[in-house]
């Protein structure tokens, strides 16, 4: 099957979030926010969009008395990301450009 670009993932902020999650089993909200230098509201908004697409699972919990939120890619999310990366690589390779390495995690 030919890899397809995924419009849900392709938006720049969502692409970075999904790339971060692809390298992880599970990631805490603050780690994503700080690593990608996003605001709380921007991350919440994008995470909600990815969750609505079925690509991200959101888990709520506590560390001590403090509430925490963890994100992880669903199986569909990881498959969509890998397909998206493969499509990007195919576009670059097809153009004769040197292929920038960005191997999908998984």
């Amino acid at each position, binding site marked *: 099957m030919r890899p*397809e*670009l*995924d*419009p849900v993932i*392709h938006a*720049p902020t969502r*692409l*970075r979030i999904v*790339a*971060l999650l*692809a*390298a*992880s*089993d*599970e*990631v*805490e909200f*603050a*780690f994503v926010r*700080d*690593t*990608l230098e996003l605001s709380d509201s921007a991350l919440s908004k994008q995470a909600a969009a990815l969750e609505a697409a079925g690509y991200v699972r959101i888990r709520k*919990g506590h*560390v001590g008395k403090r509430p*925490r939120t963890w994100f992880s890619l669903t199986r569909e999310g990881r498959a969509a990301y890998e397909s998206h*990366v493969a*499509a*990007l*690589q195919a*576009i*670059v390779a*097809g*153009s004769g*450009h040197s*292929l*920038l*390495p*960005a*191997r999908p*995690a*998984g």
Partner: protein
Amino acid sequence: MQISPEEAAKALDEIARTRHRTLRNAPPLFPSWYLSFIWGGITVVQFATEVLHGPASWAGVAVVLAALAVAVVKFLRDMFRLPMRPHRSVVDPWAWAGFAGWIVGTQVLCFALLAVFGATGLPYPRTFSSLAVFAVALVTAPALPRWMALRNARRAEATDS
């Protein structure tokens, strides 16, 4: 959806940079206190079975087993609460080889010290050799999961360069 090769190349570059930053910022791979705790438990068991006798010996072993059970639960809970756990696809197999090397190395050191202490006639050689390795574990264990996380980051950077 159509994009230009330049846009695709830029997106791939962004993905690689995000991956590197993620792994560079990753916390130690697991809570290091657990390894020291195991060696602490081994030391107490040696003390209980070599120095103590009768009911005190059994009580010492029972306390260690109970403490180990609590430690396993706490370890799993701590693992579940790490800010980031790397996906298996980005974990460097050499990091786990290093982990296995540390486990084997501390055991070999313990047996070597036991042989030396036994040969020199030191009293309670099992207890003292375990105690020495417990001290080594206290010093070296915190560096191990940090080093493992660093290996993952370096491997990703080497693979993508």
